[in-house]
Every structure is written in structure tokens, then in C-alpha cells.
């Protein structure tokens, strides 16, 4: 019987090795898999390449992972937020590498990675510093830049509902990068608020079909980054 449900967060992330690439879902705190990230901090894998839209805030979640010096490089569209202190400090002291990617290009690169498309052309960033050193090409009088698909060893995402097959539903704008990151990683790990029996999720409404998900962890009442930051908390606590 196929059963992708794991019972502990350490079981969820235990295969993450030093040097692994890890996609982490979320747009700010919406969709950020805090519990899985904290499990990764406990686990301690180092030298990670993280692919995530943001770089976390405060001293919890992704910011805490970075602060714990587990991240060698981040591929990111917007590493600056209201309460981000950790990333700027490490960035300025050259202790973390940044590959800055326009948000839509980041999304499309991840989507391409998941879809077996090694490279594609996009109009975004043409004539800007972010296109420097990249191949460009004209199609029908318009210039485009060549971008490459992005894959990762792992994805950590947050969803709302799952079944044992790994089918996922999301909540509102927490969906963001979750579905595409699941497609682009070898091992996609989803934390969900609720696990249901197969058949409880209407097949018309499935957002991430189970084929893209390898592990599911139920976290009934997940923490929220902004609340933890407001409470001045720091992970590990």
C-alpha cells in the first residue's frame, strides 16, 4: 500500500545530506513550512543550496536556518524584508552566496525543472544587470534571455490537506511556490494541516497530484513566522 505519511518531522527530513539543494516554499510567511525548516535545523545538514522566494525574517524559520550557517547559497528573488537582519549581515560578510533571480523567472525555472525542460527563453531581465553574461536571442523582433530549469534534491512545502498518496490542497495565497517546487525536487516533503482518507479530496480540485510528493507530515496547528517574530522568538528555542 502506498502511504507517504510520516509521523515525525525528523523522519520527514532525515535524508537531507550536507551539500543538498533544498527548495523551500512560501511567499513571506504564507506557505512557509516552518516546522519542516526547524526540523532541518535540528537535523543539522550543512552547505545547503536553498531555493526560496525570500530569505526569512526575524530569527525563526528560514532566517534561523541561515543564521545557523547551514546555507552556503540562496537562489532568491527578494531576500530583503521588513524584519530581515540575518541574511543582510551574512551577505555583507560574504558568508552566504546570493543568486538573484526575477520572481517570474524563478517560478518558470522551477516549473521547467519539474517538467523536463532544460532551458527556455524569457523577456524578463533583458537589458538589465541580471541578464549580464547570459545568452540572449531575438524572436520576432523582441529580445529574450536564455534561462535554465532548476531542480533540487528536496522541497519543503506547506499545504493544507493531503491523503496518503500525497495529493495536496493548499490554502489561499499559501499555494505560491509549493506546487512547482514539488514537481522540481527528487524528494518533496509537505507539511499539511490535515491528512484525510483517499477519496476525500475531489479529483477535480487536486492542486498537487501525489506523484510529485514523496513525504507528508501532519502539523495540525502550524506556527506563523510573523507571530514568532513579534514574540521575539529565536530558533532553536
Amino acid at each position: 500500500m502506498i502511504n507517504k505519511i510520516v509521523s515525525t518531522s525528523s523522519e520527514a527530513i532525515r535524508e537531507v545530506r550536507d551539500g543538498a539543494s533544498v527548495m523551500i516554499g512560501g511567499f513571506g510567511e504564507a506557505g512557509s513550512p516552518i516546522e519542516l525548516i526547524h526540523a532541518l535545523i535540528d537535523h543539522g545538514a550543512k552547505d545547503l543550496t536553498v531555493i526560496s522566494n525570500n530569505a526569512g525574517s526575524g530569527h525563526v524559520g528560514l532566517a534561523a536556518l541561515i543564521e545557523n550557517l547551514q546555507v552556503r547559497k540562496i537562489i532568491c528573488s527578494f531576500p530583503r524584508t521588513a524584519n530581515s537582519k540575518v541574511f543582510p549581515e551574512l551577505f555583507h560578510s560574504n558568508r552566504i552566496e546570493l543568486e538573484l533571480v526575477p520572481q517570474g523567472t524563478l517560478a518558470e525555472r522551477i516549473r521547467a525543472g519539474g517538467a523536463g525542460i532544460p532551458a527556455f527563453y524569457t523577456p524578463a531581465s533583458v537589458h538589465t544587470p541580471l541578464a549580464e553574461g547570459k545568452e540572449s536571442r531575438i524572436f520576432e523582433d523582441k529580445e529574450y534571455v536564455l534561462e535554465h530549469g532548476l531542480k533540487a534534491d528536496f522541497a519543503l512545502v506547506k499545504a493544507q490537506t493531503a491523503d496518503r498518496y500525497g495529493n495536496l490542497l493548499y490554502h489561499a495565497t499559501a499555494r505560491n511556490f509549493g506546487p512547482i517546487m514539488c514537481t522540481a525536487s527528487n524528494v518533496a516533503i509537505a507539511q499539511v494541516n490535515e491528512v484525510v482518507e483517499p477519496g476525500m479530496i475531489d479529483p477535480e480540485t487536486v492542486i498537487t497530484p501525489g506523484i510529485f510528493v514523496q513525504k507528508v507530515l501532519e502539523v495540525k496547528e502550524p506556527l506563523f513566522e510573523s507571530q514568532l517574530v513579534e514574540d521575539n522568538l529565536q530558533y532553536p528555542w
Partner: protein
Amino acid sequence: MVNINQIKGWTRAEMAQNVARDIPDGSYVNLGIGLPELVADFVPKGRELIYQTENGLLGMGPVPEEGQGDRELVNAGKKYVTAIPGAAYFHHADSFTMIRGGHIDVCVLGTMQVSEKGDIANWSTGAENAVPAVGGAMDLVAGVKRIFVITQHTTKHGHPKIVEECTFPLTGKGVVERIYTNLATIEVRNEGLFVCEMAPDITFDELQEFTGPKLNQ
């Protein structure tokens, strides 16, 4: 030379109103963070606009009442929003299909500089000590059908934000169609910048003084 602080010009609300007036009924609109967000408050009666936010919502509604926000229902500025009846959620690749694919009619953005050729620089000052962050700006200016810029006419120090050539790193080249400032509304054409409307307490010559490139009437 006139001191820019002596000119009242349009308020932020009036600037937003100027933008809103130019967005046709039924348009799909993406509003940047900050000043652009105000535009939604001034849509003329009888028009229905649909707002897209690139983090995955089409049919974004107003800010919820205090205490009613959902931490996972936010806009691109990571602030609480709501969803109208008829809204749709989607993932990031689908969101940028809307943006890059030319499906959004109008994008209203703030900026640091905009050139007479319609180049826009609004993501980085290029300063050594800044953490670079680009977000969706480059995709928006490359993909949305019409790019409107809403900005103070000058910097706090009185330097023109409308320039012959952007000195800051570009977000996009030749993409801006209209510029809405506290002093004027300006159209970017192949032949140069054309003033569509000026704030009531400013003359054309004064406007020219606060603007880098030559303006046309």
C-alpha cells in the same frame, strides 16, 4: 528657480485618482506596493477592475477589517487582503503566465527613475551596501501590456526622477507608457515625453525645470 517645496501639486490621492481615471472598465490590473495600491480606492463609479497579485490571487479585494486578516491571504507586499466573489488562487508559475504572457492589461508601479525612452529603474540603487532584491518587477515590466508609473516628480532632494538616461540599474527598457507624478501626467512616445495634464499650481516652464529631458506640450 522655483523651490519645489513651494509647489503644492497633486496629493497622493489625486495622483492615484489620475491613474485610476485612465484604466478602462473591465481591465485586469496589477498594482505595485505602496503608492500604486492607492489606485484601487479611486476607480470611477461604474467601472469594474480585477486586481491580480503576483503571489497567486486574481480578484483581490480590499484590506480586511482589523483583526480579520488571514496570514496566508496576502498581497505582493505581504499585507492582509481579501478575495472577491469570483476570485481565483493559483501557483506562481501560473501567476507569471498571466504576467509574462501579456494577459494583464495595466501594471502601476512606483519607481526611482524613469527615462524619456520609457526605461524604468525601480529595483536597486546599485549601492554597494544594499542587499539586492528584485521581486516580480522585471517580469511585470516585460510582460504586462501597459506600464504606468506613479511617483513623486523629484527625489526628496529635488533631483528629477524623470531623466534622459537612468543612472540606476534598469528594471526594463522602453516599457513605460505613462508617468503620473505630483506635478503632471506625462506620456512616453517615440518622439519624446508629452505632458497630458499639469497640477493646477504649476507652469510648463516650472515643470520643465524639475524634469531631466525636454518635455513636449
